[in-house]
């Protein structure tokens, strides 16, 4: 299997979008880890509905991962090569599109 063909514009778009969303999440995750490591007391602060920062930020990270993932799934462009692949393999794939 070789991928020496130059990437299509769609693929380049998808890769960049992936990297951008990755960086957003990385920033959020780093923030969480750094607060835990260097200002653990801040995690007790009540921030929302009587819940402390530890729970709100923690649940927030999980929800955020899902939201970014869905966002990525919606925005990603179909790559031309895959149309061929999918029409070849579409026989048993009832729910793939």
């Amino acid at each position: 299997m070789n991928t020496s063909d130059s990437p299509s514009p769609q693929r380049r778009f998808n890769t960049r979008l992936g990297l951008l969303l990755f960086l957003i999440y990385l920033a959020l995750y780093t923030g969480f880890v750094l607060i835990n490591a260097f200002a653990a007391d801040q995690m007790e602060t009540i921030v929302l509905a009587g819940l402390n920062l530890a729970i709100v930020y923690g649940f927030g990270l999980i929800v955020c991962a899902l939201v970014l993932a869905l966002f990525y799934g919606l925005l990603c462009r179909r790559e031309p090569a895959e149309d061929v692949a999918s029409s070849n393999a579409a026989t048993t794939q009832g729910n793939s599109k």
Partner: protein
Amino acid sequence: MIYDPAPLAIFIFLGFVFGTVGLSFYLGRKAKSSEGYFAAHGQIPWGVNGIAFAGDYLSAASFLGICGMIAAYGYDGFLYSIGFLAGWVVALFVIAEPMKRMGKFTFADALDAKFNSRGIKGAAGVSTLVVSIFYLIPQMVGAGSLIQPLLGLPHWVGVVMVGVVVIMIVVTAGMVSTTWVQFLKGSLLVIFSTVLVVMLLQKGLTTDTSSFETIGPLSGQELKQDSIEGRKVIPATDGWQGTADKKQEFIRFIPKDGRAGYDVFHIDDVPNSDQKLLRQAQAVTGSGASKLVDGAPNGRGEGERELQPIGHLSKLPGGETSTGPLGPISFFTTIGDSEVILWGNTTIVPDNGPKTTVYYQKPTAGERVLRPGEHPKFAGIRGESFGDKLNFLSLMLALFCGTASLPHILIRYYTVKDGAAARKSTIVGIATIGFFYVLTLYLGLGAMTSGALDLTDTNMSAPLLANSIRPWLFAVISAIAFTTVLGTVSGLILASSGAVAHDLLIGVMGIKLSGEAQVKVAKIAAVVVGGIAIILGVLFKELNVGYLVGWAFSVAASANLPALVMLLFWKKTTKQGIIASVLVGMISSLGWILLSADTYKSVYGLNPDDAIAPFSQPGIITIPLAFITLIVVSLYYGNREDETVSEASA
């Protein structure tokens, strides 16, 4: 604790296992070719594959380990949930689609896609084997501890059972049936965990002040008497009297009702006074058949004692004794305003004879279990030591980078038909896994307050929580936990057998095999790896499940991720760079772990202070090290041989 095997539990459990194996035989009839065996012909629908990701990933460590850790110490276990999920973001945004495009059967295929080098196949194959075997040990250990309470069989029987069933699943059908087993298990796990959380919230929280006795408050003078409140004190000798730098912690009484053994109490300070309060503790001496509980043989008969279940609230807000149904938010706010009894332990070392571990109650403000830093392994984040903080950062980094480099997760990208399907199945996986991890905090805290926990085995917290709500739920959750182990183990064994047959034998040694012969070799490899896993599972019985998974993540992140990422994003990567990076990452992280304080203490039984590695988690050093190795080696060979990716692929 002594468990009663319930007929219903055994029935449900066996139903699950036979159902799973039967399904596997049924689906396995068609998987004769190597494409079918290793990659399910790339024909698995993405939705099914997504749930199967969850089945693969929510291993015994995720389910049993995290819930147990939260049940014992609160929020800290949830840090693992967050890290384990964050890793999926790396997998989705960076790794998923290129993995699918570049590879065919194994992780080594993808790394090697541009070079066709034996060295890369060899290094990647070996790292797959190492990571898989590390990951296998805790799964097997977990399976053994599940079987014990459920069927009343010894630990090793559980390990052998899992091994045999999994080898059957893998050998009969390979990736097709493995995927469906994981799909089944992933869905059941999430569905029944949700049911459990709903029932838990319906039940609400209650206080319990009667399970364990309290004596006092007493003055210092009263504590020195021969008898206290009509109970005769056993003189503190042979390790019980405390040492020069540690005061006496416990008082033992002769039981009033003529029972065997002793009643042991922890001496607690009363806040803002000189007085002391005695709270009942529990003591375990020795292990195995000669185990003593509170000084008497372990058992339920005449003259025997058993450990009492633990985990309760001592105070609810407003002096209530029961809250009634709670909402998902008020569950946390109520715990935050309550007082929880956690359990600490101290070891009493006599002049000769076996040691005694005494477990004692630690009344803890509810808000403390809702914040990080209560677990001994995480307490460092509240301290001043920079090494402890670095250790924490290192763990969180390894969790972040580890997921996208676990071989049994990576091979799942070859079961779908294209990059888009790989992407969609990862999104389904993230949704399923993320939802489950939200539940872990409820399950863990629910178990902490359920009054049903086993002091000596936190891994059983989630099933025991289920037992405290409905006995049939215990059977179902245990059976699912067992299939959880089956699913993860079969994925791991499949990944290892692929590494042996496809990467090492064909790729490195150059043996030519037809598709069917390749499958045959892979099946033999699966039996051998399964056998090794059974032996290790029996040997490492005592080790903490979550701890071993941490090893696997660190090694995977150090050995596999740098090579994978650089191959995708740096055009000057050379094959020498990849080989060096995989080997350096693998050897340095393994070496670090073997020389760390944790390993000294729990594996070799040596003094942890003598350990050579400055802190336990290697990731923060070894992941960058593997990146640097790749860059330096690639630049060196790139200049010398002019054999870079950009030219090869231009």
